[in-house]
Every structure is written in structure tokens, then in C-alpha cells.
């Protein structure tokens, strides 16, 4: 029992360090190490730290992360998303709020070849914000739809968050990628429905654009082709069983380079920038992942996760109440800190409990991914909101968050649907 108290103290100190601005991964490493030293011994702490640094950083399973990051970076730096936007606009731009819906749809499409929400948000902000302002869209709807569109970046595969969840929960990356596609499409539809509802109530938020002929629409699809081909090649290859996840990431890099070269959008300089940016993201993500493992070892030796799972199992509450409580913790966690950081801290704590409650791990993984995505647009700490604020002219952060509120409500409704109808996730496996 006294070790569990140590675990609780460890969690408190961890959060104290986090709020004093120690990077999330550093704090997990540090507390994990000190915790193992406190519970076991100094030698044990040294062994865990050294062995985990070496064997986890060099684990074949994690090699998929830098590869998908690089693939997304190449696509992003070579600016293929604007063609996607153009096509989406020609198809749905003439509806009320059409330009905002175009933003969501383009984000979903771009996400199919990009695994990061910040890259998706930044890309969409660059492409869509000028257009939205040209058509006199309200600032809140513009910023809200761009920031929210970005969250789709980690919903549709490939997705850095899904990969991390899969590896931490020992699920198959491919199964998880497949399981989230239908829920992702449903979420996209709900987000667009929200835009239609907003502009129906108050048309000044988003006037309709020009209508395009069928011919124009069909021609516009040409611009979608490279991204569609890449998606089919990379994820099709993974789903059909031609590639392992790592191979699909490597072929994704290869395919992205080929397409960017063929369409003459890639210079050596852009390639260099893509690499250097990928290195930073890789270092950040893997530090988080390995830090979470070291921190998880500390929790393991204290016995806290199992004790928590055992305790929760005995509670008289129905499991749904406990699940909702856990999701509420995620909502708060995702609000006050970086959602990805919170995700990796929390998985070792909560996962045994959720499994003990009898929930399907794959379904829970999908929910976690959705909750983590939402964290990027919830105030006060929402990465996507800050990106949009940084790139939008004269838009205060409060306006951005005012714009994301209705989308957050849609997200919460969507999570409710997943809980009420788990088949949405589970039918595809």
C-alpha cells in the first residue's frame, strides 16, 4: 500500500513539474527514474533508464513513426493541399457556409496522407483563411472551421496519435487505422452539418459561393488525383496486406517524393526543410513515448494501475459511469495541457482499468484518439487554435475559441454516439 502512496506522490510531482514548464517528456523521464530508484534501488533505476532508452528508441515497431511523419512533411512542404481545396470548393462551395465546409472536407482529404493535426491546421490556415475572408465569412466561423479541420489530421489514417495508442496498448496499427475510418467519415459529416446549421441560423456567418458546372467539377478532380493515388498506394497496401506498417510508411515517403517530383513541387531545399522538421517532430514524439514507458515502469513497480483497476472493478457504479469519469479526466487533461502529452501520461494509468471494465480495447483506442483530437481545439490550451490565431490576421484567441465551441459540442455528441453505438467502430473489425 505504501508504494501506491509513492505512485500518487509521483503523479503529483509530475504535474507540478509540468505546470512549472518542464517539457512533458522530460518530466516523465525524470519522475519515472526517481520513482524506480525510490521504490526499488539506484541500480534498478539506472538499468531501467539505460535499457529503455536503448531498446525502445531502437525498437522496430516505433520506426513507423518517423516514416509517416516524413511522408506527411513532404506532402505538406510541396503544397499539394491547395488543389484539394480547389476541388472541394467546386463541389460544395455554392452551399450556404460552403467555403467553411470546403475547409473541413479538404482537411479530411489532406489527413489521408498526413498524420499530424498541427500540420493539417497550418496547411489549411494558409490555404483557406484568405479565401474565407474574401467571401466575408465571420472571423469566428473561419477560424473555428480551420482549427477544427486540423483535428481531422489525426483522426483519419495515417495518424501519429493512432500509432502511439496502438503501440502503447499493444494493438495492431492496421486494425486501428481501419476501425477509425467510418467513425471519421461520420465525424466529418457532423462537422459539416454544424456549419450548415450555423449559417442557416445566421447567414451572415458564411454566404454561399459561386456554382460550378459539372464539367468544371470533374476537371477539378485531376488535382485530387496525386493525393488519392498516394492514399490508395500507402494505406491500401497496408490494409490489403502487402506492407507492414513500417513498410507502408517507407513506401509513403517514397511515393510522396515521386509525386512531388513529378508534379514539380519539390525542390532540394524543400526536401531538406521537410527532413529537418521531421527530425524535430520525431525527437519530440519519441521522447514522449519513451518517457511514458519509463514513467509506466515506475507505476508498474508501485502496483498502482492494477490496484486502481481492481478498486474500480469493486465499485458499485456501473462501468459506464467510470468510463465517463475517465473521459472527463481526458477532457480536462486535453484542455489544460498538450493533448498528446496528456495521452501518453495517462494510458499506463487508465488502460488496465478500462480493460478490466470489459470495454473493447480497439473501441477505447478510437475514443481516445477522438478525445485527443478534440483537445487541440479546447481552451485554454489548444494547439490548433493557437496556430490559427498565429496565422489569421487580427483574430484574437478568444474569437478562435468562440469559433471552436460549437465544434467541441459536435465532438462531444459524436463521442456520445460512439459510446451508445459501439458498432460504429466495431462493425469494421
Amino acid at each position, binding site marked *: *500500500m*505504501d*508504494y501506491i502512496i509513492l505512485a500518487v506522490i509521483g503523479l503529483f510531482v509530475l504535474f507540478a513539474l509540468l505546470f512549472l514548464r518542464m517539457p512533458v517528456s522530460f518530466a516523465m523521464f525524470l519522475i519515472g527514474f526517481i520513482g*524506480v530508484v525510490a*521504490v*526499488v*534501488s539506484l*541500480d*534498478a533505476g*539506472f*538499468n*531501467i533508464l539505460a*535499457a529503455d532508452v536503448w*531498446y525502445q528508441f531502437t525498437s*522496430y*515497431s516505433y520506426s513507423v513513426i518517423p516514416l509517416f511523419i516524413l511522408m506527411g512533411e513532404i506532402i505538406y512542404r510541396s503544397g499539394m493541399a491547395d488543389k484539394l481545396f480547389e476541388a472541394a470548393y467546386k463541389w460544395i462551395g455554392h452551399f450556404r457556409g460552403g467555403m467553411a465546409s470546403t475547409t473541413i472536407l479538404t482537411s479530411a482529404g489532406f489527413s489521408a496522407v498526413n498524420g499530424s493535426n498541427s500540420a493539417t491546421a497550418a496547411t489549411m490556415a494558409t490555404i483557406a483563411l484568405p479565401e474565407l475572408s474574401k467571401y466575408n465569412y465571420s472571423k469566428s466561423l473561419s477560424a473555428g472551421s480551420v482549427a477544427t479541420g486540423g483535428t481531422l489530421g489525426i483522426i483519419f489514417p495515417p495518424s501519429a496519435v493512432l500509432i502511439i495508442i496502438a503501440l502503447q496498448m*499493444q494493438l*495492431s496499427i*492496421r486494425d486501428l487505422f481501419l476501425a477509425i475510418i467510418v467513425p471519421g467519415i461520420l465525424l466529418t459529416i457532423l462537422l459539416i452539418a454544424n456549419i450548415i446549421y450555423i449559417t442557416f441560423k445566421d447567414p451572415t456567418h458564411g454566404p454561399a459561393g459561386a456554382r460550378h458546372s459539372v464539367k468544371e467539377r470533374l476537371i477539378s478532380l485531376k488535382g485530387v488525383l496525386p493525393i488519392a493515388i498516394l492514399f490508395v498506394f500507402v494505406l491500401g497496401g497496408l490494409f490489403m*496486406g*502487402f*506492407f*507492414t506498417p513500417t*513498410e507502408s510508411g517507407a513506401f509513403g515517403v517514397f511515393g510522396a517524393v515521386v509525386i512531388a517530383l513529378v508534379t514539380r513541387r519539390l525542390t532540394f531545399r524543400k526536401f531538406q526543410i521537410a527532413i529537418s522538421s521531421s527530425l524535430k517532430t520525431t525527437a519530440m514524439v519519441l521522447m514522449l513515448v519513451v518517457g511514458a514507458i519509463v514513467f509506466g*515502469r515506475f507505476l*508498474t*513497480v508501485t*502496483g498502482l494501475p492494477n490496484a486502481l483497476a481492481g478498486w474500480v472493478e469493486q465499485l458499485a457504479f456501473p462501468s459506464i459511469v467510470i468510463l465517463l469519469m475517465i473521459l472527463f479526466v481526458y477532457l480536462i487533461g486535453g484542455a489544460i495541457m498538450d493533448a498528446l502529452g496528456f495521452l501518453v501520461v495517462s494510458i499506463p494509468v487508465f488502460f488496465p482499468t478500462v480493460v478490466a471494465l470489459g470495454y473493447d480495447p480497439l473501441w477505447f483506442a478510437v475514443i481516445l484518439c477522438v478525445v485527443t483530437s478534440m483537445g487541440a481545439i479546447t481552451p485554454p490550451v489548444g494547439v490548433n487554435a493557437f496556430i490559427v490565431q498565429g496565422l489569421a490576421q487580427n483574430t484574437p484567441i478568444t474569437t478562435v475559441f468562440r469559433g471552436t465551441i460549437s465544434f467541441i459540442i459536435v465532438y462531444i455528441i459524436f463521442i456520445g454516439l460512439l459510446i451508445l453505438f459501439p458498432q460504429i467502430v466495431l462493425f469494421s473489425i
Partner: protein
Amino acid sequence: SPNNEVDSSTNEGTINLSYATFPPPGTFPNIQMNKWAEELELRTDGQVEVDPFVGGSLLEASNMLDGVSAGVSDIGLTATTYEPGRFPLLEIAEAPSGYQDAEISSQVVNDLIEEFSPDSLEDFKVVTSFATDPSYIQSINPISSLEDIEGEQLRISGGVSSVLEDLGASPVGLPQDQVPESMQTRVIDGNVSSREILMDMNLANQAGYVTDYPLTITIFVVVMNQQVWEELPDDTKEVIDELNKEMSLFTGQYLDGHIEEAMEWGEESEGVEILSLDDGEEERWDNAIEGMQEDRVRRAEEQGLPGEEFQERLYELIEKYSE
């Protein structure tokens, strides 16, 4: 608790021993662990309790020995086959030697470890040791001749991959947990391991054929941190020593029964077909892999270890336990 200090907060005088393993829950090394823990608690009248950490949650295969030595866990289960270079003598026993089942290989290995006490285990207390039934080729395509196996990409644990090269196949090193997915995607054409995984990992779903030709074995050793051992009371030490051979036999027998069950299930429910080699073919295979053990004996001798003596004793013991 992960150390064996007397835990004052619970029953007075209770000793807690942490026990780390790397295979997933439910697999035979963990069944062995549970049985051992149960017997130990029983025979010490509840004086000793075991805290299990399975599936690599505390220590993973690659770091098991170093981790136990550093005191991360009091006890740890390691597979010497996963640590090539560290056990030159035991590597001789891994090579195909004519073990008929896990009951025989486990007892042979247990005796050999006791008699030859490998250098790498010097700083540990050996709790018990056992081995798998020989590995068999479990493949997507039927393999019943050297021509069939030529160029097949088969997953095998790294330490014994040379046996596949000798047979003309192309060995692939992959973590065990990636085997089913890799087979499904045809990244590999088959798997070479003890056959219980046909059922345990549902491999029978992919592998339609098992070639009836025994290959290498995997050796497991359970070690305890030396200092922890020394601090144990004498009666507990006695019980642990008395359990050593019992557990080896138990694990071998359990695994044999489990493999039989897995094969029955595979044949009946999944239509797995067992392919035997005809006489001439079997001789070709024997000739192809003959050199593996000899190479290992030679390597051990070069390092100043009694390789030949070990090999001789190996066959004596196999004969003894095969009766």
C-alpha cells in the same frame, strides 16, 4: 513489492519476491511461474509471496539478466536463445539433437545447467530451467523436401537462424508478436518455433502445413538476484531448491500436453496438415544440418570451454530421459 525486504505493513515476516517474465499472460512460461508461486507459498506456509510482472511490463527479454542483476526484479525468466554469444555451451544443446519432446529436453537442459554452471549465470541463483519441444516449420506452402524449402522466408529466433540457412531457406528475424500479422501479409512464408503457438497465437489460421522434422529448442532459465537469494531464510531456500527439478518436469509435461492439444485443434478445426519427409529426404535434411552442433562445439572449445565434454553428456542425458 519488487524487493524482498520484510514488508512491515502486511503480515509480519512475509517475504515478497518480484518475478518478471517477457512472454504474454497465459503462455507456458507464465503458467510455470504461477505454479511455482503457488507451490512456494504453499510449502512455506504463506511465508513467501510472489508478485508477478508478466509480458515485459517490468523487464523485457533483451534486458532480463541485466535487470535482475541490477535488482529491478528479484526473479526473472530469460531465454538464453535470445541472447546469442552469452551462453556458448548451452548453444550446443539448442542445436537439433534428437529430443522427442519438451519433457526430455527440459530435464536434459536442467541437468546440463546444474552440471556445467554457465559463466553467465555465475552471479545468479538458478531457480529452475526448462526447454521447449523442438521447433517445427509451420508454413503457408507445403514443405517436404529441400527443394520446397529453398528460398522460403521463414521467421526464426535470431540465435538459431543458421539452421535455416543450412536447409537453404531464408531466415527472417522478427519479434514473436509480429509473426501472425507478418504471415498474413506474406512478409514471411512461415514460422519456425515450438508448435503451441499454432493455437496460442492462432497461427494455424495462416500456416496450413507443419513439416514433421524436429529442429532447434529454446532454453529458458529462471534466475534470482544473488543477494536476494543469500538473504532468504534457509527453509525457503530449501523449498526453492526442491522445486527446481520439479518445475522443469512440470513445465515439460505441461508443454507436451498443450502442444498435443494445439495440434489436435489445428488439424481438426483449422485443417492443418502434417507433412512427413520420406526416408531418403530425411537423410538429406540430417546431412544438411549436421554441421550446426559441431560448429558450436568447436566455437566453445576455441573459447576454452569443455564443448566436447558437454556434447557427450548431452547425448547421455537424452538417452537417459528418453527411456
